[in-house]
């Protein structure tokens, strides 16, 4: 019996490249944690997380290809998440007493890690 292999399942190289890309992006993310670039560190780190997610979704989770309805399913999770975030922030931003007093003026703490190296 001759097997007709799905062309998207015939080669390992694209997946290996995707795997390497995710690791490199993870390395960049890790590196920014030690650079002392302040608020840019989490922005870059979560930017890397989003790019890694796109790679994993499209390549490893085979979002690319039929059935194309998968795109709507995958996107709708994030769409509803945006609703949730929006409604929650509307609530929090209109609350009295938020942010709490301690958060409004946080103390400057320069304490080294308590855990032994």
């Amino acid at each position, binding site marked *: 019996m001759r097997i007709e*292999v799905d062309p998207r399942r015939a080669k390992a190289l694209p997946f290996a490249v995707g795997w390497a890309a995710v690791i490199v992006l993870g390395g960049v993310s890790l590196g920014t944690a030690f650079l002392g670039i302040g608020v840019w560190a*989490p922005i870059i780190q979560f930017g890397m997380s989003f790019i890694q997610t796109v790679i994993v979704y499209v390549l490893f989770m085979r979002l690319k290809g039929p059935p194309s309805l998968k795109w709507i399913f995958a996107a709708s999770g994030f769409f509803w998440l945006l609703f949730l975030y929006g409604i929650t922030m509307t609530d929090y931003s209109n609350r009295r007493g938020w*942010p709490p007093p*301690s958060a409004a003026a946080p103390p400057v703490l320069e304490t080294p890690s308590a855990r032994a190296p």
Partner: protein
Amino acid sequence: MPDSALPRPEIQFATIAQQGDTAELGIWAFLINETIFFGALIFTYFLYRNFYPHEFAVAAKDTVLWCGTLNFLILITSSLTMVLSINAAAQGERKAMILWLVITCALGFAFLLVKGYEYYLDFLHKSVPIVAYEIKPGEGNAGILFWAFYWVATGLHAIHLMAGIGLVLYMLLWRIRRGLITPAYYAPLEVVGIYWSFVDVVWLFLFPCIYLVGRS
């Protein structure tokens, strides 16, 4: 491929391809719930990190970075081996499919082993709210919020990974053993692979939330 070589679809499907497509859409529908589930958890984290940035930075500095990084490498590699197993299934290479699945399963267990060791270190360091917790210098009263997130998020993630390992074992010990995964129909393995990679994606977000805060 002659029609006689194709497995018969379930009664509600016209073709085996339609059955496979439906299975894929099913797991994506499930992942919508999972996205909102973990998304809400991570949003809560951001909310409190925004309110208590210094306390969170001091608390997060006590997480074990090498464990988190090693687990990142283990998980992303397991996603690759899972995909290679599905590729082998599509190509009818039964031995390769089994081998890659066994490696995937082993990497899943390795993740749990590293996580378990990290939990042990956290316990020694008294970073377990309610059970064994001690406020460290600089953490203030909000440090416990970080540790509560850490335990809930990593615990839920570990439960999801255990479910993934269970599914991989089910594939190995039941479906593949009985010859139910073939090049003509390997959608069940594909579905498990999609779930496995999603668990990996969750870690891609938990990693910067937990391990990369307050390091500089």
